[in-house]
């Protein structure tokens, strides 16, 4: 059995995935990115191999912000391509390829796929971090909760607030002023999700959208955001099986193709 590795060097975390030649995901792991990206990558890969008892990796592919400096990897590929590949493995049953919405730590991307999972086009958010995972994290902090709890809490809301600021810093103060005005935490969170979803939906050009929508990235694990997204689009939104690792899995898949 040959093992292929994909490394996704994101802004906040380094993600890695191991797959075999059939495309089965063997193991995944995450490690926070320190200063030494390279060292972290090496440690992480070794740890993953150890966990499933694999001795060697046939080919390693890197993607993400720090892909150029990951010396462990033989080659690198951009996240867009990696995500498009990753979906082949992580997409749930019944997903017709159309659109991937990736909500990462510092950026969010929208990738249009044709029916062969090839990239038709893509768009990314502007420089600022509104509509990204970071945004969510900041708000969660203000509301004294954690990022995993944000989703479930928001679902309890009955009358979501309006949050409009497009910028993290402004949104932060907006949320603070909402808190000061004694708004319910649940409503604020629901409002935040709606605002994020709006922001991302703006990036989607609906006429280019063929099949279904798949969410990947850390943001996909947030059920509240997903609901808001569905609300905004009036469509069902699928979530990838390993949303966080989609890029890494994609990279690994490319690695296996490269090898063959």
């Amino acid at each position, binding site marked *: 059995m040959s093992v292929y590795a994909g490394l996704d060097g994101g802004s906040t975390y380094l993600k890695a995935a191991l797959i075999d030649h059939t495309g089965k995901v063997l193991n995944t792991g995450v490690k926070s990115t320190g200063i030494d990206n390279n060292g972290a990558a090496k440690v992480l890969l070794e740890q993953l191999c150890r966990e499933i008892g694999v001795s060697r990796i046939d080919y390693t592919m890197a993607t993400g*912000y720090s892909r150029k400096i990951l010396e462990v990897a033989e080659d690198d590929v951009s*996240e867009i*391509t990696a995500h498009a590949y990753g979906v082949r493995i992580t997409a749930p049953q019944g997903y017709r390829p159309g659109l991937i919405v990736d909500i990462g730590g510092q*950026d969010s991307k929208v990738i249009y796929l044709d029916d062969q999972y090839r990239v038709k086009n*893509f*768009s990314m958010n502007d*420089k600022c971090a509104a509509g990204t995972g970071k945004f969510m994290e900041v708000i969660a902090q203000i509301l004294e909760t954690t990022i995993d709890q944000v989703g479930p809490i928001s679902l309890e809301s009955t009358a979501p607030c309006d949050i409009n600021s497009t910028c993290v810093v402004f949104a932060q103060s907006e949320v603070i002023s909402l808190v000061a005005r004694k708004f319910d935490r649940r409503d604020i969170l629901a409002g935040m999700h709606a605002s994020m979803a709006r922001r991302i939906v703006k990036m989607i050009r609906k006429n280019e959208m063929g099949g279904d929508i798949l969410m990947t990235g850390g943001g996909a694990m947030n059920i509240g955001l997903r609901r808001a997204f569905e609300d905004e689009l009036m469509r069902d939104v699928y979530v990838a099986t390993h949303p966080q690792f989609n890029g890494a899995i994609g990279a690994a898949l490319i690695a296996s193709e490269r090898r063959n």
Partner: protein
Amino acid sequence: MDKLQNEIRTILEQVGQEHRGFPEVNWFLKTMEQAFSAETLISEKPSLIVLGEDIPRELALALSDHPRFILGGSLETTHWSDALLPRDADPVSRSACGWLLNEKFNLAENAIVIMALSSDNRRKLASLLRGKGIRVAAADMPPRHDTSEARDAWTAEMLRLADAVSAHTHIRLSAHRLKAAIRRREQVREAAIDFKNITWQATDSMSPALRDIIMESVWYAPDRKEWVYNLRNLTAQITAWVRQYYHQPDERPWVLLAGSPIVFPNEKLPNLLEASGLYLADRADAIALQTDIPCADAGHSVQRMLRRTADLRMRMETSGSWISNDGLLSAVQNRLEHLPVSGIIWHVLKGQIEYDFELPKVEALAAEYDVPVIRLETDYQQQDVEQLRIRLEAFAEMLRVRNQERIRIAQ
């Protein structure tokens, strides 16, 4: 001053290497270096400064033998004007303001500055410069380009500029001078078109960034005649080189860089394109497309020649100053039809909102040709290089896959 010199030298050195040893290239690099060298900037006291590309070059050349063109573009000069301009002012205006108002050199000491009031930034810049004691003559740019009234108005405004400049320099705008300037620009245009064609034939002869710098050097060349002569030589050299050697087919996807103008020395985007493995086939922006705009036929009266110039320019002009920027759209369409362009990069300089408004139209046009468009918003700062790089690399990958797919289908 040192920083500015560094900025320019770095670009020239970096880009200057990217060719296959054509000796003629050095002349152009030297011209550029000369135009921006510390000595020139400090000692040169031009009598006419032309701000921006909206004023027809033939008019400027007819009004003065050695006009100085300021197109903006340098990062360092934008810093110099920070205290004068609001936060959201666009980098081109910032830079232009920096060129004219700083403590290091005073280009405008003896000069009259002419400019077209083609955008909000330009309008307010004109009044700002006047407030600082610089002589400014500004032409009002009509927002429509398709009515004869607008063309009459633009002709009248050009005459107004001519009057203002004549009063300052005591050089009268005669039909004779204008005719000579028109003829010279026509030569420049022909040489430039030939040169561009040959670089398309041999994409590996030199980097697109270098090609565009060579083309841009015409703004700064002290003598256009010499420029034409040298460019013809260079074209001949490349032609000979093309015949002599075997060329591997270039696999790089061709892209079109359109939207806000790229101005020397801000070669951030062309360099990034190069690094991401894309071939910058052509630039479709207000400065690069000057070569597309034909010159008026030499007529007998100044009035008539200017009217004709207004006619031609307003049909083709590509600055964002019109209500609808048809000129730019048709230029893009022209490139899509005649060049194997597989992607369009829509460049929006922060603050040049007019190009942002045009994006949907360009997207619609590109969709007809099944060419993807990516919008890049940036300024002259270097901070966002990494973000841009990610986008461009992904774009390049996508184009490559698409091209392969196309070839596969074709087979």
